[in-house]
């Protein structure tokens, strides 16, 4: 699976899709492959404020638990409720139906700290 070019990426393997003031957040294909069999997702409350780099959700797979960190600071607008019934969507479609939260972006300058798809791919190569 290719890492979509229009997204921004973090070192903790999250992605963010920017649509004006809104950021849609999920985990990358690399991350879902590491976890495999996702069985539970702990989602934040709507309205919760998060900081860039701080924990926003938790993903539990058969073998491990992993925190999801917010790529930017902001307020949680929406969470993907489908993940309650079918958490495996994250494994199947990590960049699409497997989105996790929608945020109202607080500070657009924070986006500059994130990586492009190419930068993320280099990062993966270096850290293998």
């Amino acid at each position, binding site marked *: 699976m290719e890492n979509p070019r229009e997204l921004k990426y973090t070192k903790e393997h999250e992605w963010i899709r920017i649509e004006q003031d809104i950021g849609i957040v999920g985990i990358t294909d690399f991350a879902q492959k590491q976890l*495999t069999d996702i*069985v539970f997702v702990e989602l934040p409350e709507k309205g919760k404020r998060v900081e860039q780099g701080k924990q926003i959700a938790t993903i539990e797979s058969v073998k491990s638990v992993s925190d999801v960190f917010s790529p930017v600071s902001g307020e949680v607008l929406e969470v993907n409720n489908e993940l309650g019934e079918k958490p495996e969507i994250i494994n199947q479609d990590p960049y699409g139906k497997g989105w996790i939260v929608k945020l109202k972006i607080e500070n657009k300058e924070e986006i500059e700290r994130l990586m492009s798809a190419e930068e993320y791919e280099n990062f993966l190569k270096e850290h293998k």
Partner: protein
Amino acid sequence: MPDLKKTPLYDLHLKLGARIIEFGGWLMPVSYTSIIEEHNTTRNKAGLFDVSHMGEILVEGERAHDFLQKMVTRDISKFDCNKSFYCCLCNPMGGVIDDLFVYKFNDKKFMLVVNASNVDKDFGWLMKNKDFFDDVTIINISNNIAKIDLQGPFSEQIINDSFDFDFSLLKRFDFIEKFFFNENFVISRTGYTAEDGFEIYFNSGRAIDVWNRLLKCGKDLGLKPVGLGARDTLRIEACYSLYGHELNENINPFEAGIGFVVDFSKDFIGKEALLEAKRDLKRIVVPFELLDKAIPRFNYDVFKNNRKIGLVTSGTFSPTFKKPIGLAILDIAEADVGSLIEIKIRGELHKAKIVERPFYKYKGKLNK
């Protein structure tokens, strides 16, 4: 730091796309596609497991029978030739040195199949205790033996096809020793999944051939390779112990819930301590299911009424029952079936219920 060990099938696993982890000094496949998928394939069709990292120890000699009677908890004389059985090696305090299968060829020849992590320890323990048994030889053949498990409802069909032999008469726990493809094989109707299945032991030089042949013959029936991840979910559903979790040198077989492997009808190392332990059992391993959406894991604390009553020994998400399940060692007073307990998972208490063993009953060929 010694190099990590690889089975003869390591490169094949990589080609099949396996995710590799380190387990007991070995590089092993944890899954090929997904743990849940491999688990379900084993329950519904058949799964193929490379477990060549396990240990095999040959014990032979005029008095091999008497020597092993002294060493293992179970009464060997109760078993016929070509039968295998589950038992423990205990220390003088009754703690478990290893859980293992003994394959009885005859009274003078036995093969012990032991945990990968305990091979050297078990071999050392046997050697240390063979003082007056000069005629007995103990040989660690682990490095020469490959072991492949074939488990699942289609196992018999697949193995019959692969070996061109009728395995239907082999009952559970029976084994045969026979030449196939110019090579000596030991094949038992045993396994670690609670499905019908076979464990196949042979010279490791032929591992790739045998693995590929089984995969080929099983292809149309849906046989797939299965990694250690699903091996764990399968055995937890069956409530089978894993050494280092339900068993260790400070846990005796009664505490582990496997008292049936202890025969007081003969002498063996640990007998006195176990007589006492059985009389005054203080804790026991029980199965439980979570009533909540969180996974219990090894060494998580177990509470009841705000008091810690034990520890989780194994935990996972059950692909068959689609809920978190596990095993825990608890104070015996709190270990009743139906009891509500709480598991501390990442700082929060989650409700759970003690249930009867096993979650998943053996589905194979009963030995009747």
